[in-house]
């Protein structure tokens, strides 16, 4: 993504193909303090977001709404603020080890999060129904109700 024109080139290749319905892009999500070639510098990230905002108007198969791309510019600050992290459970291949605090594990650099699912759900959470009812408190309320209901449920015996 650091090469100028790469996204346009990618979309020009894949968009005309009849078997392609939708195109999405995630961005690389580094760990805190990570210095690597994969990591987008702030200037690169800004350019990628600007490119995607422009390209979505030219390529109809690029299904990335403006609200979602705006979340890439200002992602949730921590897993506690991330709807996707709060509503999903990631388990490693041994089927017992939980991956926390989100699917990336370790100490993800949330300020540079490029997770499409996180951005999509954050865009929904930031949406206001009818222009004035925020969705985020509905999510939070639903999670609290779910947590209470789980406490009331009898504990199932372990299969092991």
């Amino acid at each position, binding site marked *: 993504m650091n090469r100028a024109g790469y996204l346009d080139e990618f979309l020009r*290749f*894949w968009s005309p*193909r009849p*078997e*392609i*319905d939708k195109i999405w892009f995630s961005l*690389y*999500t580094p*760990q805190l303090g*990570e210095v*690597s070639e*994969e990591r987008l510098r702030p200037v690169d990230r800004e350019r990628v977001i600007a490119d995607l905002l422009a390209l979505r108007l030219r390529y109809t198969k690029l299904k990335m709404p403006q609200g979602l791309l705006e979340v890439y510019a200002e992602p949730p600050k921590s897993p506690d603020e991330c709807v996707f992290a709060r509503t999903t459970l990631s388990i490693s291949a041994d089927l017992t080890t939980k*991956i926390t605090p989100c*699917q*990336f*594990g*370790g100490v993800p650099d949330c300020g540079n999060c490029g997770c499409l699912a996180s951005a999509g759900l954050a865009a929904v959470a930031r949406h206001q129904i009818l222009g004035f009812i925020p969705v985020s408190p509905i999510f939070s309320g639903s999670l609290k109700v779910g947590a209470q209901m789980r406490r009331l449920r009898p504990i199932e015996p372990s299969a092991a």
Partner: protein
Amino acid sequence: MTISTVSRKARSLREFARGLVHTAHPLLVQIIPIRRCNIDCGYCNEYDKVSAPVPVAVLKPRIDKLAELGTSVVAFSGGEPMLHPDLDELIVTSATAA
């Protein structure tokens, strides 16, 4: 609503109905056409830096077999599937195999 959206929804409905009446076919199959990946995500161990792409000649008969079994969804994973030089051909094969 565009023709492609209608077509996609019709296909979803058909697959849903087929899933109800015919329960013996694979629902989702993941194909790993290449194990190599060009990035190095801290949370992932499903890659290496050296593997060659699986040749199309090897994968095509497997995709045909999945079609014969009535597979609903074929997903290409990796490694980084975009590094496979013939990924577009594999997608066409999967989309048209029936």
